[in-house]
């Protein structure tokens, strides 16, 4: 026998308790990792740099109200505006799907090219998209998900608009924050709808982030007191408004995580002090045999550390395997895009587990330090 095998035997002596401790630590660490991943997921989009250069202008009344196409020439002339394109949400269902998780937008292909600056053309040719009025420009994630290739056709049935689309894939983009969208010619939509002379929103790129507030004010002012007043805001603000129902998500997740970690501590701490308390007599015997406090501390620390680390590893890698293994994008209809459990998040979980191991051995160690051999021998088993 060695000191190490003695510690292992001690840790596993009450198998059920050891198992319960490991499971509760595993579940809590897994939950913590999941929450941190969710928090990251929900805060990624606003962190795209290119997005802060873009403005979306919509009808002041509501998003569903269209804007007149003739506003284009006015917006174009506003100083600081580098590019502008109509940007109309089609919201159709792909093939036989009842809910389609990626958006389709009608744009002006030539103008739109100057708006998407962060992506790259992964396949096909953007000029083919410009040239063919019935073609579309598709995100790489969508291509991959449906196993599509250049030249394939994508059919959408309108939900918003009483028309259907039949588009030919001309080019594929990749490297934007959300590589799922499908873009097609606004002219096609206009034709199908009988040229109503309206667009959904305007997509505007400004020269620099510093002047975006200025440009927003000018766009708003330009149409003040007209029949179609607009409300312009940064793409970031627009997206945040979209997930405004998530409100103080960061705060919420933060507090839930804190509660999880706290509960986790209570569980492990109480398990460890239980494990030590029921062993008081034995620890007193060990002391009598010549084991010093230092050695008894290290037994306790090794045991709580071992349990916390095994539980933590199970929980952290379990969460990683789970979220890496299942297609959350499909499962949540695109609400969760990447849900990537990053090394940083896993490390955070690991730090919590390590801290837990140390923390839960504090109170038992104090108890053991105080324990006199004579008192310990008097405790009944």
């Amino acid at each position, binding site marked *: 026998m*060695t*000191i190490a095998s*003695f510690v292992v*035997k001690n840790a596993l002596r009450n198998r059920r308790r050891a198992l319960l401790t490991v499971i509760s630590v595993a579940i809590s660490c897994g939950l913590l990792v999941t929450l941190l991943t969710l928090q990251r997921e929900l805060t990624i989009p606003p962190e795209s740099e290119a997005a802060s250069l873009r403005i979306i202008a919509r009808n002041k009344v509501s998003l569903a109200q269209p804007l007149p196409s003739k506003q284009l020439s006015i917006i174009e002339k506003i100083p600081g505006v580098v590019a502008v394109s109509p940007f109309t949400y089609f919201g159709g269902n792909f093939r036989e799907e009842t809910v389609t998780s990626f958006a389709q937008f009608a744009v002006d292909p030539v103008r739109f090219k100057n708006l998407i600056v962060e992506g790259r053309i992964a396949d096909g040719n953007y000029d083919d998209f410009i040239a063919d009025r019935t073609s579309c420009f598709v995100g790489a994630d969508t291509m991959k998900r449906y196993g599509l290739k250049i030249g394939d056709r994508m059919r959408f049935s309108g939900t918003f608009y009483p028309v259907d689309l039949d588009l030919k894939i001309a080019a594929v983009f990749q490297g934007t924050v959300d590589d799922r969208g499908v873009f097609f010619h606004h002219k096609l939509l206009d034709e199908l709808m009988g040229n109503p002379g309206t667009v959904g929103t305007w997509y505007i790129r400004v020269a620099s982030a510093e002047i975006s507030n200025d440009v927003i004010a000018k766009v708003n002012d330009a149409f003040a007191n007209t029949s179609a007043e607009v409300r312009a805001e940064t793409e970031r603000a627009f997206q945040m408004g979209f997930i405004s129902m998530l409100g103080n998500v960061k705060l919420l997740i933060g507090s839930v995580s804190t509660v999880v970690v706290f509960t986790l501590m209570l569980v492990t701490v109480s398990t460890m002090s239980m494990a030590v308390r029921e062993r008081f007599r034995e620890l007193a015997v060990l002391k009598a045999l*010549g*084991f010093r406090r230092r050695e008894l501390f290290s037994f306790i620390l090794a045991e709580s550390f071992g349990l916390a680390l095994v539980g933590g590893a199970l929980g952290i890698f379990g969460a990683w395997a789970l979220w890496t293994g299942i297609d959350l994008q499909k499962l949540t209809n695109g609400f969760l895009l990447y849900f990537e459990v990053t090394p940083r998040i896993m490390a955070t979980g690991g730090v919590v587990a390590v801290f837990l191991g140390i923390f839960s051995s504090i109170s038992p160690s104090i108890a053991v330090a105080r324990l006199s051999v*004579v008192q310990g*021998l008097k405790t009944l*088993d």
Partner: protein
Amino acid sequence: MAAEPIVVIRELTKSYLQGDLNVTALNGVSLDIQPGEFVVLMGPSGSGKSTLLHIIAGIDRPTSGSAMIQGINIANLNESQLADWRNQNVGFVFQSFNLIPVLTAAENVELPLLLTDLSSAERRKQVATALELVGLADRGHHRPDQMSGGQQQRVAIARALVTDPALIVADEPTGNLDAKSAGDVLAILQSLSRDAGKTVIMVTHDPKSAAYGSRSLHLEKGEITA
């Protein structure tokens, strides 16, 4: 008696504060014990037998007076020195065996050796010798719950003598045993003092057990009366 006494106790007192009350467990005990003696401590409950034994064994400290063991005043040792000292010089046998339930007999006996520099082969050899001495050479791989009380107490004796200490202390070692097992345990303790030259100090309530010793001491209200 030619040899130096192994235990020299002078004016030892131990008192406890119980609430406002000062309880005197030992009241000026002086005592010499020679190497190889088998001293039996007797006396009514609460007379201070265990307290005296604990102080001699270095797991409790006196309120005043001195306890010199092999020329060392153990009151002067700090906690960790005292722990080392116990490991090398004292073997403990308790009334309720106090074996570690998750360890086998051999592992229990090996425990105090984990604190020494011995190699695992040397440890195994000493464990085997100790188990053989108590007649349990073939039980090394059994866990405590697979053994009778008498066997468990013999394992405990093996654990007490595996480090080859000069002093073995036993607090009512036969208190939980039937007559036959008690006889076995007492015979082993007797042979340790008689044949191996160990100094054995045993507390007991049973006059028949006392007959195994070489000397009996009677404690009454914290004082030695005979």
